[in-house]
């Protein structure tokens, strides 16, 4: 029974140090949702197929359903809950909301974090670059087009144009 054998680790979560104890077989996705109550990270398959559970670990997007929680020890994890600066939404969050890039909103946290990673690496991405970067994230509502537009507008805003 998983309740009997918890391991405790510490890591940086959305800029804050956290200590958490959990059964060692748990994925980072489960630790975030179940042990840290951060349910903003979603799941669509828990097999690494859909991109829904993407979070940033040390600035790189990873699928949290494929990473053991224990492997987060001493690393920096960023989830959707850590994307806004205080009450100020990240430009991507703003443009996704304003341009209709989030319909049901279930895949949105994963898309936002992968898009944030892209814009850090490539502040002025071409449409093809955006498509490539987001190709591991499935969305069944939008047909992706409003997502591209939101990423492009946020990139423009971040560049200060």
């Amino acid at each position, binding site marked *: *029974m*998983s*309740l009997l054998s918890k391991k405790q680790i510490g890591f940086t979560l959305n800029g804050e140090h956290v200590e958490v104890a959990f*059964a060692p077989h748990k994925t980072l996705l489960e630790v975030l*949702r179940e042990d840290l*109550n*951060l*349910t*903003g*990270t*979603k*799941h*669509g*398959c*828990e*097999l690494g*197929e*859909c991109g*829904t559970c993407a979070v940033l670990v040390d600035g790189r997007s990873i699928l949290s359903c494929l990473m053991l929680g224990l492997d987060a020890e001493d690393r920096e994890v960023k*989830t*959707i*809950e850590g*994307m*806004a600066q205080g009450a100020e*939404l990240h430009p991507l*969050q*703003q443009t*996704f*909301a*304003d*341009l*209709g890039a*989030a*319909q*049901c*909103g*279930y*895949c*949105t*946290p994963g898309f*936002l974090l992968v898009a944030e990673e892209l814009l850090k690496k490539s502040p002025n991405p071409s449409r093809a670059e*955006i*498509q*490539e970067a*987001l*190709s*591991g*994230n*499935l*969305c*069944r*509502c*939008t*047909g*992706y*087009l*409003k997502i591209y537009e939101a990423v492009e507008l946020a990139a423009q805003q971040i560049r200060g144009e």
Partner: protein
Amino acid sequence: MVSKDFKVIGKPFRKVDARAKCVGQTKFADDIVLPRMLFCKILRSHLPHALIKRIDVSKALALPGVFAVITGKDLPIPYGILPVSQDEHALCVDKVRFIGDPVAAVAALDEDVAFDAMNLIEVEYEPLNTISTIEEAVLIDEPRIHEYGDSGNVHKKVSLEFGNVEDGFAMADLVREDTFFYEGNTHLPMEQHAAVAHFDSDGKITLWSSTQTPHYVHRALAKVLELPASHIRVIATPNGGGFGGKSDPFNHEVAVCKLSMITGRPVKVTLTREEVFYCHRGRHPVLMKVKTGVKNDGAITAMHFESYLDGGAYGSYGVASTFYTGALQTVTYEVPRYKFQGLRAFTNKPPCGPKRGHGTPQPRYALEVQIDKIAEQLRLDPAEMRRKHLAPANTVTANYLRIGSMGLGECIDRVVEGSDWKNRFRKLPYGKGVGIACSSYICGAGLPIYWNNMPQSGVQLRLDRQGGVCVMCGSTDIGQGSDSILAYIVAEVLGIDPFDIRVVTADTDLTPVDLGSYSSRVTLMTGNAAIQAAERARELLVIAVAEKLGVPIENLSLAERRVFDVENPDVGVSFAEAVVLAESKFGTIGTVGSYTPPRSPGKFKGSGVGPSPAYSYSAAVAEVDVNPDTGIVVVERVWIAHDIGRSINPMLVLGQVEGSVYMGLGEILMEEMTYRTNRNVVHKFPSMLEYKSPTTMEMCDVVTYLIEDPDPNGPYGAKEVGQGPLLPIPPAVANAVYDAVGVRIDEVPITPEKVMRALRDKGRGRDPRYGPDSVPPVAWPDPLRVLTPAEGGDGTEMPHVAVHS
């Protein structure tokens, strides 16, 4: 008086819940955590068809951490979405009918324990022969999958004739017969179904669930749990995508309620992705035969449409789906005589049901590809031929569907112009092609699922003396933006900002009934109900303000959070003050609105499916690149025009059009629910990796044109957009593939193998076509005959006369 100068309607406001969705605050069903909550796992059948001889749960119950295990005998009452198909049990009682059918449910301290317990349940089965195809269901009566239905393994047979089609074929210059097959596919919502039930110490139960139809779940729970409906509360959480896949009452919803009643603790279930494939209720595989007679100018003289649906193991919405495969053929082009025969088969597969377009993408594919073939044979331009023979606006079709506004002509014009059709059709180099197709869809079903005389949608408004407005409605936001539509409409009528409004929806305790998010009904029906409720509130406000200001009521306008004299705008009060005046005069301010669709002119048996307050129209041109060496089809661009009536919010409308194009592309190019061809009927790939759906790399450019021709039945003239724009995409792509390489793929999806086989046949001088050649032999009953309106019919069936043909 409705002002033409809208403040909110037609403006691209963000959705009222958009920011919450972008910061991770939206609570989906699986995000709900309650103290002392247990977790449920469901044991499912690994056999496609078998009798349950014995179930032993003792080892599972003995496992530490397990609180309850239930089986079919704990929930003996059947249920189902349609009154005529009450054929499901939350847990199978004596028989399993497909791989994935639920057999037992466990509640335990955590998911791991529940999983271990599930594997300790012993079930002894006696396997039965399986029925795995439509043909088998038609030809093999025993064993029967169900003990009800029209015969053997045929669930439903429908046979209707409007006018005399043989007369029509005799008048035709050309009669074509074609057969088509549209493979089944599934919704694949990103959110796996989840539900949490909590039975409290007062004997009341609350279910939070990712459902599109909380009202129907409420009814099913009252029946199956044998509790008074007043003790059951169903709250639909925001759906992480639905597309029709969360429209049935589901076994897992019933199971967690029962487990919570037994344990006295909250119980959660979250399906795995594999289980979501088994829930299914997706697109029916449909085999079709179409016989159409036309004059030399392309005018249709008669059509005889046959459809054969693979229903899977349960009824679900299937009777309605069957009628839908034959209903909407008549609302795009004029069809003066029409015959429809439809059959739904039971097979040992996950049950099919409603997916975006419910029962209409399959016949639309057949019809639009056949029209392309006819146009070629008659040497007519397929766009012009369609344009010339449109079903007229404000008429009643041969099968008694009342068409109101009809913007298809303009839709065709826009995509023809936008795609430079005339310079490209049949003129592009080998491997490149363009194709056109059109479609129509209902804006809500004319009749509710269970017979009643009550409204289909209700809205309640409460105005707070501080100026707050709360709008309550049973509708369910599944991502389409129905919560926002309520806020926009109420804000428009009351002259306030949509973000001033609190929207409370989809809670059977708090909100008046709306039947649910299906059949593209929500904007039209809740919108009309919201207008009525808001206008009633507006009336109370202006009476009170007119009295206070000494201004005639008709001079008052509501805008920018004020109620003021239009002739002297400085004279007025704030919206909040207006509510105070109204509350002082009338007491607490609450109003209601409701909507019931107009009666259909059809009165014959079977006329319940197809009527709608309005029909939306779409036309699309697809441009493809077909590689003749690999058979790979790349859709490069789609031009689509959609007759929306009026956009309540054009940004949301465009999002629905683009999402529909995307889903149509998935269906035509890659998505299929297929099963191994041995007798085991195992799903080939119940996973997102192998069930291919379009990623960013497969999605094409989309150029969208919105045609705004307000319909008198729509709120501000609005019609639907959530489903209709999917319909023209599969046939437009198929017609473009023919334009590119000269092969007809009469079977969906168009995979590279099918293209290669057709190209090989073409190279050998054979029929350059891939698709079915025949339909199963069926003894159809004499059709129910109805005189068409043009023949002076009144919508009732003719007396039955035995005719030997």
